């Protein structure tokens, strides 16, 4: 009986979730200088790209230069690159982004609070958030060429490309 109840409840939650808006939860994390950065404030400037990465993840490190290019090319967006490196490895993560002079904002989610809230299970995992705070696109993994898919989706959010697309296009190559 207990199990039946639980299963029914979980099912209901899942069904109702489908109808709810897919809003990005607000969060505040520290950047490389120890200052707090808040998503809601970042959204005031325009759409936001949120990317989860770690210094031990090679596909993540390969993706960072293209995120940096987006930050340079589109000044009205904010790229928040959230590292999930363990607290003992934050020095390495800092060294990675500062030595390469990346212009995006690097944030530290050492307790994986934001990662947990978004149910991110593997990295890299990238989200494009429109200015209303809705998750417009998400993508798991990184392979050479994925940056083109990301840019296309970003342009749709920026209103520079039509947003109508087939399901195959809105859910491109996963890893």
């Amino acid at each position, binding site marked *: *009986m207990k*199990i039946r*109840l*639980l299963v029914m*409840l*979980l099912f*209901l*939650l*899942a069904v*109702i*979730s489908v109808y*709810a*808006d*897919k*809003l990005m*939860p*607000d969060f505040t994390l520290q950047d490389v200088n*120890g200052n707090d950065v808040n998503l809601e404030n970042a959204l005031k400037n325009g759409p936001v790209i949120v990317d989860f990465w*770690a210094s031990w*993840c*090679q*596909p*993540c490190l*390969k993706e960072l*230069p293209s995120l940096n290019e987006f930050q340079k090319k589109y000044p009205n967006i904010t790229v928040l690159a959230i590292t999930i490196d*363990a*607290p*003992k*490895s*934050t*020095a390495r993560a*800092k*060294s990675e982004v*500062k*030595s*390469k002079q990346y212009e995006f904002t690097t944030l530290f989610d*050492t*307790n*994986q*609070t934001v990662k947990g*809230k*978004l*149910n991110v*299970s*593997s990295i*890299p995992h990238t989200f494009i958030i429109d200015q209303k705070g809705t998750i417009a696109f*998400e993508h*798991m*993994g990184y*392979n*050479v*060429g*994925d940056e083109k898919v990301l840019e296309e989706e970003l342009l749709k959010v920026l209103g520079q490309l039509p947003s109508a697309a087939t*399901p*195959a296009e809105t*859910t*491109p*190559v*996963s*890893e």
Partner: protein
Amino acid sequence: MKFWLLILFTVILQAGLMATDLQINGSNELNYTYRTSADSLHTFFDDQFSFTAGYGNFTYGMKFIMYLPKYNKYESNFVQELQPDKLTTEWAERYLEYSKNHFLLHGGTFEETFGSGMVFRSFKDDDFDIDTRLEGMQVKVNYPKFRIKSLYGSWHSVRYDDDSPNNIAYGSEIEYKLLTGLTLAGNGVAMRVIDPTNIYSEQDVWGGRMNLNYARMDGSVEAASSSKYHMSTSARNGYGIYANSNVYLDPVNLSFGYRKYYKFDYILHDLPMVNYHSEPLNDATAGLDEEGAQGEIRYNHGDDNSIQVNYAEAWSSDFKSRMNDLYTEFDQKFSNWQMIAEYSHIEKNDDILQYWTKDLTPAVSFDFNIAGNAAHVRAEYEYIEKQFQQLTTYHYEPLLQTDYHYKQYGISIITETQTEKVSELSSARYWINCEFRTTIFENTDLLFFAGKQKGGKVCRNGSCKYVSPFNGIKLSLSTRF
């Protein structure tokens, strides 16, 4: 009757909330595992449902897991104790959080860290089967000039006859921004732990930290002392020191690190090991008596290529236990392909145990396009040599990985072997496995794994994960919403 009332209540509540500013994120992962091991059951199912709902200043999160029967990826159960039809349910996480402006109150399951984790860290790591998260409450106050966090919680004991959350921890940290780029912090944690013989021990840890953050330089120094008392053996005091620094002299970047731990071993922390592979001097005695230093140099030539060399040494106070760790990497990008060449070298020596081991791994990987689709090839040639007293053994572990992606389909094949002589490769032991991934619906991924894997960090199909040793088939369907 109760059942339908509850359902009705949930529907009404959720319908009401839907009309408002409700944020919902969640995932469901359904796994089927077929294990070929002879001393185990073969078929396992599990379903992991995670759900986070944000409403106003409140956030509720939970993770619920059902196993049929429960599969332990690290320990093999006695086959006679396993029941194929035993359904196990588990609340892996439940919490309620309230946050407004500079204030946060969290009740339920939580992870927390003070500084680098040297003084305190409670966390969960599925890949290494670690779960020291606390069940309790935490309060955080964040202002630009200062931060305060306090916590009180319990976690599961390792007592052989009981798995109750009998262990208790409480502590606080205050961080103060003294000047631009200079932050000072002080923290204290008290822990009460029940040991396998049902005797409580208590441990207090006091620490201090200084962080520097400037454009051309950053670093931190952390020191802590611990005292352990009320234990079955005699009381003892210990200490830990950790320091790191990065200096950015474009295009060259220098990094330094130092650690020293003496009788500084307890459960709720995660010691920085100050070497590339995060290796302790001795796995069984990490934090008891070790000291080490690390240096790293990186050279970035624009966005096209970079070189890094990282070298670390560690030793015990009597120098009878020593290790070194070298890692070098050369990364070269071309117009439409990329190459990374790596070499890693770890050597450990213990004069008392008369034990010595050496692990060398040269590796090269390429990323390129074939007919417009991404491909990845990685080759490793690991050499391991071990000496225990008079006995010396050695072997090679070559590995070849190929990944290929076509539209939303990704396939990755890894072949790994172990042999003493390269000429005997054909008769050597092999680990061959294949992973296939695809997106079948919007935000729904299907993963199929078949074969035998050795375990360790694996980056395949564009994502990285630590995996446990396994032989069999896995089918996983994950949906995010």
